[in-house]
């Protein structure tokens, strides 16, 4: 069986693909994310970013700041966000 080290489960990105991108010159988390696509799935990088930080640190590269966090932090059905608002004094 082929040995594959998945780095990002949501987007099916492997460790090798990330190393390849780093060697191509994408040396910070934000540009790596845009090139490889990790951290763009349902978990929004909560599971994989730390592994990638460690991968970069291990290659002697400062990972710098992580990726920008935007709502929703956890996936939310659009119907809930589209619901009208009621004022509540409680």
């Amino acid at each position, binding site marked *: *069986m*082929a*040995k*594959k*080290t*998945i*780095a990002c*489960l949501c987007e099916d990105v492997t*460790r*090798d693909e990330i190393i390849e991108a780093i060697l191509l010159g994408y040396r910070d988390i934000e540009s790596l994310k845009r090139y490889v696509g990790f951290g763009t799935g349902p978990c*929004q990088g*909560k*599971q994989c970013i*730390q*592994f990638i*930080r*460690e991968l970069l*640190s291990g290659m002697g590269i*400062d*990972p*710098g*700041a*992580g990726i*920008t*966090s*935007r*709502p*929703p*932090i*956890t996936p*939310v*059905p659009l*119907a*809930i*966000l*589209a*619901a*009208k*608002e*009621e*004022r*509540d004094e*409680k």
Partner: protein
Amino acid sequence: MAVKSQNIVLSRNLDPIAILDHLYKRGFDYQHRFIRPAFAKGIYQKIIRRMAGIGEVPMVGDAAKPARRLQADVLIIGGDPAAAVAAMICASVGARVIEIRPDQSPGSVHGRGAEKDESASPSYVSIDNSKMMGAFDDGSIAAVSGERLYIVEPMYTIIAEAGRELPIVFPNWDLPGIMQEAACLALLRQDVPIGKRIIVTGAPERAISLARSLNKAGNEVVAVPIDDPVSGEHEDWIEKISKPGWRLVEANGRNKVSSVIMTKGKVREKIDCDCVVTSGPISHRIEIARQLGCKIREKKWSLPAILVGDGFETTKRGVFAIGISAGLDDPDKAIRSAEIAAKNIVARIKGMGS
């Protein structure tokens, strides 16, 4: 909601297109592979898209309840036990406290927030089983609970979220049968049998304690590879299975994990197993702080954490972080941080009233 069709022909095990997985071990990138000759790209794409198929999702939406907007003196984003302490202190002086308490989904570790009756004060409201949605530019915070969106407009915010367990990454760690500690504990709580030959690895103390829980529930743990030995007296069987200095470097199996490779220096050992549980590092939840504009401490090797100053206030005025959100793993220090932050807020609220 259920996806009715998948990218397979026949069943998952008999799918003939699965041959591509063996022919193209690094992935079948059809967008590039079929790009030559360029003029035939459109035709190729049509064929490939037909092969790939499209998942179908029923178009029936769930009925959502109207969103509710609430005002609070203190909003506590809970999950950490320290949240309960902060809630009680703030509510005891009559401050209007709202606590957002997370759901008990796997991945949430380090306990729960306050039970409602612990803070009997009428000025305390909790939004239970909630999922964090995010922060708006004006500092209001949104969360979803029971098909309803809650928007809280707080004067002060305390972030006291639980940690989040991270995976331990090694070749084939995504095989079925390999799970994280929180998932394993969730299954144990439901009395689900876990395995007959289990490997537990990761943070030494948690791994040993998990091995004990697994054993107690009738599962058999065969090895616990950990970095350092765990001090203290242990049962004989624990001494026998704990492997300080050993590292799990790879898992193998076809449809499910069937063995792992462990190494210690140059020694390599293969152990048969039917389940692997990893006690990964606990990370801080920094997303809401980032969205509120708080500064995050990011060092090369360590886990990013919310930067707090004296009194556990973040770089954003009126926003505090306590417990594991402030990087405090020790429960006593976490409780102390809750007391300091809550008293600080209470003093400010009183100062405004006078």
